[in-house]
């Protein structure tokens, strides 16, 4: 034993030494680059460092999720505004693309000729046209075909729709609304507890507890009753047509809509293929066995096929999510104020500090992507079938 152990340990130590040396070399290279950059910038009389972060930005941003004003907010604030806009459009697009992608992926396997060929046509059309082209198509199609301000479509319920965007009534919550929230929260927690209890009972006794109606009562009826008894603590501020623009109300910019459509529709085509591959990877015998046990087709898909398919689906699905997040930076082509447009755009051109700003932007996209991967890996483990 000892004779084998020694060379192995020696080899391991050697490996560690090589790796440490490699890390040192790479680290040294980065350090040298940083020092060299600082020296070159100083020699060329170009400002460097992050002193600009707290300076007043001075420019406006068309969509801000947090308070922002051109006169008082800083470049740092503009960074956060851009980052949140990126997360907003990417987050919603991921949800839409997933729903659409799963639907189309499943539809493509349908026995109905029309359904499966429509789904196939969608995939082939969408995934073979460059995303940027689709984005410009959506933006220009959306912009050019929608009515102008004074020919706005009026929506039932008091909204407007024109080439400046979609304007909806803005909900105004009064103080009593928190009771509704509390009731909803209570309902949600109770539902969670109930479902755990119901599953455990089913596992032990085999009896099923039909949770559906109770959940409806807890999550919908209970908050609704509280809402009514608290004196309907919710009102709406309706948008109205001004001389130049629609004022008041919630505003959905055409730039946002175009980017959202383009990203979700494009990515959905790829997700559909991932889903199809995943479903096909589950052996036919599984479906047949489920049918033999008397499970209905819907239940078979939900309980037997999809859980096994998820093992295959999740890793490539993660890649698609990452692509979507990075592709959201195409916003710059249509003027949607995402991180890339605001920070690597306006802020960079005003301050001129390319190195710092490009580095920060890269680090941010890297962080978002790594977090997404982490989340998806965790999800993959959670939903994956446990091998017995």
């Amino acid at each position, binding site marked *: 034993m000892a004779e084998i152990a020694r060379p192995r340990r020696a080899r391991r130590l050697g490996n560690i030494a090589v790796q440490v040396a490699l890390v040192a070399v790479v680290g040294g290279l980065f350090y040298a680059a*940083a020092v*060299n950059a600082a020296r070159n910038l100083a020699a060329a009389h170009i400002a460097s460092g992050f002193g600009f972060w707290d300076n007043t930005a001075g420019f*406006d941003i068309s969509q801000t999720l947090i308070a922002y004003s051109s006169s008082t907010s800083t470049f740092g604030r503009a960074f956060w505004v851009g980052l949140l806009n990126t997360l907003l459009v990417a987050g919603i697009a991921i949800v839409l693309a997933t729903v659409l992608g799963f639907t189309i992926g499943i539809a493509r396997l349908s026995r109905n000729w029309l359904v499966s060929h429509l789904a196939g046509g969608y995939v082939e059309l969408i995934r073979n046209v460059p995303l940027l082209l689709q984005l410009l198509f959506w933006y220009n199609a959306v912009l050019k075909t929608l009515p102008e301000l004074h020919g706005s479509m009026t929506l039932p319920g008091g909204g407007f729709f024109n080439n400046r965007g979609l304007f909806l009534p803005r909900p105004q919550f009064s103080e009593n609304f928190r009771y509704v929230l509390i009731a909803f929260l209570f309902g949600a927690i109770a539902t969670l507890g109930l479902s755990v209890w119901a599953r455990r009972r089913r596992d032990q006794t085999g009896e099923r507890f039909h949770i559906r109606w109770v959940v409806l009562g807890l999550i919908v009826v209970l908050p609704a009753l509280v809402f009514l008894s608290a004196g309907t603590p919710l009102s709406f501020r309706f948008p109205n047509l001004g001389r130049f623009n629609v004022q008041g109300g919630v505003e959905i910019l055409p730039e946002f809509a175009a980017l959202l459509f383009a990203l979700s529709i494009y990515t959905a085509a790829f997700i559909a293929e991932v889903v199809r591959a995943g479903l096909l990877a589950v052996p036919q015998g599984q479906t047949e066995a489920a049918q033999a046990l008397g499970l209905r087709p819907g239940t078979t898909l939900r309980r037997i096929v999809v859980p096994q398919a998820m093992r295959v689906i999740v890793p490539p699905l993660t890649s698609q999510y990452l692509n979507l997040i990075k592709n959201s930076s195409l916003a710059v*082509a249509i003027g949607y104020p995402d991180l890339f447009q605001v920070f690597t*755009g306006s802020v960079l051109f005003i301050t001129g500090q390319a190195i710092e700003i490009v580095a920060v932007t890269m680090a941010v996209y890297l962080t978002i992507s790594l977090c997404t991967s982490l989340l998806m890996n965790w999800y993959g483990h959670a939903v994956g079938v446990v091998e017995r």
Partner: protein
Amino acid sequence: MSHVMKRVATALAFALIVAFGTQAASAQATLKAVQDRGQLVCGANGTLAGFGLPDPQGNWVGFDVDFCRAIAAAIFNDPTKVKFVPLTAANRITSLQTGEIDVLSRNTTWTMSRDTSLGIDFADVNFYDGQGFMVRKSLKVNSALELNDASVCVQQGTTTELNLADYFRSNNMTLKTVTFATADEAVKAYDTSRCDSYTTDSSGLYGERLRLTDPSANIVLPEIISKEPLSPAVRQGDDAWEDIVRWTHYAMVNAEELGVTQKNVDDMMKSANPDIRRLLGVEGKFGSGMGLTDDWAVRIIKAVGNYGESFERNVGQGSPLKIARGLNALWTKGGLQYGIPVR
């Protein structure tokens, strides 16, 4: 979307050059580099009528283009020895910093922060401009002060973007800014009535108006809301090169002051006026002081004419833009253009 790629590419190239490059582009060498290369590389607009735009045959024309041709003429006695690089507002400064271009002649506003923190220097103001607004006539707006709550399309990375916010704020008005990476996109969005108004330097407004579907349905409002001294720029640290760029401008202004034109320059060499004789190199050794020949100014005037000629041909009465001389008239005629004496 080449400009998006180009923006990323220039930013990355800049980062790489700065991080790994040695201090190559060191100062005093620009004139020699240009002479060795056999042509001047000039950063120009590329989409702005009157200032920098290739004509249908691909020849670059415009006021800013003329300025680069003048420099090339002074160096090579050949105004065609220029390579024009079309730049957006976004990548113009980086292109100059990285040494991709020798001189930036692209309606660029001289500001303190650009002068002091970007590693570039401005030669001198060759066009006094100010920011204005364009609106559709159908809006029946007569003053920028009526634009409260309007949507305004603007190009990113410009002083315009900043002035716009300032102007609305100081007049207690609100606005909705829609920001685009290029003037092209901003103008297109304005043309499809995504915005009520388009704003840029007023000289630019006249140029961009020509590109709209129906130019006559749009007007430029009378208000000028900012000072926009447009100036050619060079990298900081090569004073000899900066001198050549600066004196190219003064040569053109002095020529106008002294009545020297593209046509009469040969006759003027025989003039007895000592100012003219010094400018045209008949007397003194002023050109050799800059590393050029003494007939440098003659070459410039033969190539593009004097300041007034270049102005009128490109943006003034001889052009579709019809911009009045205004602040750009000679100081003797109530303007601000003032030739520094050749002495």
